[in-house]
């Protein structure tokens, strides 16, 4: 009798082992790839983005960008903005074929036909509320980590590296505190100057032309302008009485 209890008991225990193994497997992270019961058509020969390919010598399915060319869809993506960017609303092909050189200058924020280092003074697309909102959103993605939400140059990355430096860690590297975007160093720049910094980078800041689309760059410029103004904001109580009165009357300044 005791024997039978023992046998049945150990059978039940043994039966629980696979269940326990599965329960464990369900709750851990494992570096072994997913188990394909049947491979079927799970893996096919066609090319997918960022996947290896045996066809090309460098082993990449995605072809790298050829220097000096513009991918067709790049142009279509930004086409609307680029059209508006060009002062006379040139036809698309005209821009590509005949005025490539000038067109690139506009993209770089430089005055058409102007000399080196001369920048467009005003954002060449209509600055609407929607554009500034878009600018804020893009700013929060690409600029905020370093420059901070208020643009003062103390984003979370800067705070982190500052702590590293204080602890004497070599990981702090050659980092310098990002520029305060509400300071005169930026507010005195023409719009095209800020645009050019986004495109080409400056000092320790890398170029962002590959990450940010053309309209979005101008949107960010618009938002940085708004930040600059907010940096200059003073309490209405401190304004001269005359100005306050005319503001109250709804006049523009």
């Amino acid at each position, binding site marked *: 009798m005791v024997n039978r209890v023992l046998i049945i008991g150990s059978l039940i225990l043994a039966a629980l082992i696979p269940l326990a193994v599965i329960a464990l497997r369900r*709750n851990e992270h494992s570096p072994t790839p*997913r188990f394909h019961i049947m491979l079927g058509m799970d893996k096919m020969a066609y090319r997918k983005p960022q996947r290896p390919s045996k066809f090309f010598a460098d082993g990449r399915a995605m072809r790298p960008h050829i220097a000096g060319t513009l991918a067709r869809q790049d142009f279509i993506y930004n086409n609307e903005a680029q059209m508006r960017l060009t002062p006379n609303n040139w036809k698309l092909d005209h821009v590509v074929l005949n005025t490539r050189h000038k067109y690139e200058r506009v993209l770089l924020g430089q005055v058409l036909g102007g000399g080196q280092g001369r920048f467009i003074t005003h954002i060449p697309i209509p600055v609407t509320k929607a554009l500034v909102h878009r600018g804020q959103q893009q700013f929060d993605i690409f600029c905020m980590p370093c420059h901070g939400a208020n643009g003062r140059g103390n984003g979370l990355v800067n705070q982190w590296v500052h702590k590293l430096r204080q602890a004497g860690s070599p990981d702090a590297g050659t980092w310098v505190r990002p520029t305060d975007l509400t300071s005169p160093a930026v507010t005195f720049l023409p719009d095209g100057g800020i645009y050019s910094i986004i495109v080409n980078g400056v000092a320790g800041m890398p170029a962002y032309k590959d990450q940010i689309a053309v309209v979005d760059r101008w949107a960010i410029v618009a938002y940085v302008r708004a930040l600059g103004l907010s940096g200059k904001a003073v309490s209405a109580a401190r304004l001269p009485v005359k100005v306050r009165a005319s503001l109250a009357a709804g006049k523009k300044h």
Partner: protein
Amino acid sequence: MSDSEKPYLHFPKWANKVPVIVATVGGLLTVYVIVLLGYGANARTLNVGYAPVQPVPFSHELHAGLLGINCEYCHTDVKRAGYAALPPTQTCMNCHAEIAPKSKKLAWIHKSYATGLPVPWIKVNDEPDYVYFNHAAHVNAGISCLTCHGHINEMTRVYQAKPLNMAWCLACHRDPAPHLRPRNEVTNLQWTPNNKARLAHDLNLTVATLPKNLGQYLMKRYKIPSTKLLTDCETCHR
């Protein structure tokens, strides 16, 4: 020799129990095997939790969590393209040219930067090649990365958080409403519908005019196609 002593085959008494035993053991075994297969061979067990060791020990917990970098900083095309690309090495060098420039953990990044060869990242979430999936369509319909990838901002090593099998896709395609949120909050993994002021700002409404049923409201506002279209085989197997 009497009749009863002739060498006929006699079923012993215990043989009466055999059918019962066979039925019980067989029944229990069948139930056991079904439970085992159902529990062990389902997509949740097989697919979830895959966490390959990457060539660079990149931590989303640090970058996307503690440093608060938005997903789009690196996965730039996620709102524009079907494929949510992994960032090129240049994106890492934006910061790592200056931060931790000598770190051994970044060996592959430096190698890739010098030679132009891609970093051999291992794909974590991988649909079979006969399935069509599109990020832009989902993200612009107001579905968060959180819904399909889990708390990426708390992962030191990315793991697959959802089964990604057909039943899972369909469960949502039959009723997407509860999963929707304002479009510009999809990369905000801490989003909650309870912050009314923020919700109103996101939707360009006032707190007073906020819809009672957010899901149904967004279904209309984002023009989500009918369940019939979303569950059509051709949508995902094209």
